[in-house]
């Protein structure tokens, strides 16, 4: 299983802060994005946004990053702290 978390505008657009997915078919963050986007039209639109950032186990990563069972993957908009 992979734990997936969402933050800020993304969390609100999806109306979801956290979910778990079976990781058998998912080898990269890009695979995971595709799987999430296929849930419904809203998820598809939201994940069409190229500006979205991803992190695996609290480190910012690119879409080609490999993932495995037990990982925590996060998706969020560009950060605006400070």
């Amino acid at each position, binding site marked *: 299983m992979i734990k997936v978390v969402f933050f800020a505008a993304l969390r609100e657009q999806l109306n979801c802060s956290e979910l778990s997915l079976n990781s058998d078919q998912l080898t990269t963050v890009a695979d995971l994005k595709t799987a999430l986007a296929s849930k419904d039209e809203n998820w598809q639109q939201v994940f069409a946004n190229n500006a979205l950032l991803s*992190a695996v186990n*609290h480190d910012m990563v690119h879409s080609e990053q490999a993932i495995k069972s037990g990982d925590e993957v996060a998706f969020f908009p*560009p950060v605006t*702290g400070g």
Partner: protein
Amino acid sequence: MTTNTDAEISIQTADFSLADEVALLEQDNAIDGAVVTFTGRVRNQNEGKEVTSLTLEHYPGMTEKSLTKIINTAKERWRIGRVKVIHRVGELFIGEQIVFVGVTSKHRQDAFAANEFIMDYLKVQAPFWKKESTKQGNHWLDAKTSDENKAAKW
């Protein structure tokens, strides 16, 4: 939520005292002659809109990890002594403190550079998000290209 005052990083809902933070940076630290602080506060306007408050969300765990990396990079690049970064989360009103960065050093140039570097990277790498409340409603702030450019300069 970190509240240990000895830690270099604290993510907290509570306000902080600039004087107390600087006193901790200076305590038993007579080798560092320079102390540079940055404090960021909630402004009453942003891009022409009248702001009433900001609500800050963050990604617990990743926030601390990303700030630790930024601080460690600063320590590799400049000869600095102590560092403290505080970032508040939750709803903050006009004039309230949002973020504090304090850096001590033997020499002022290192303290200035390291402090600005930490702020520039915090702005583009640390997972915080601001939702702005104005009289016209609430909205999430967009990231600024200018912030990306500032970080890319270093």
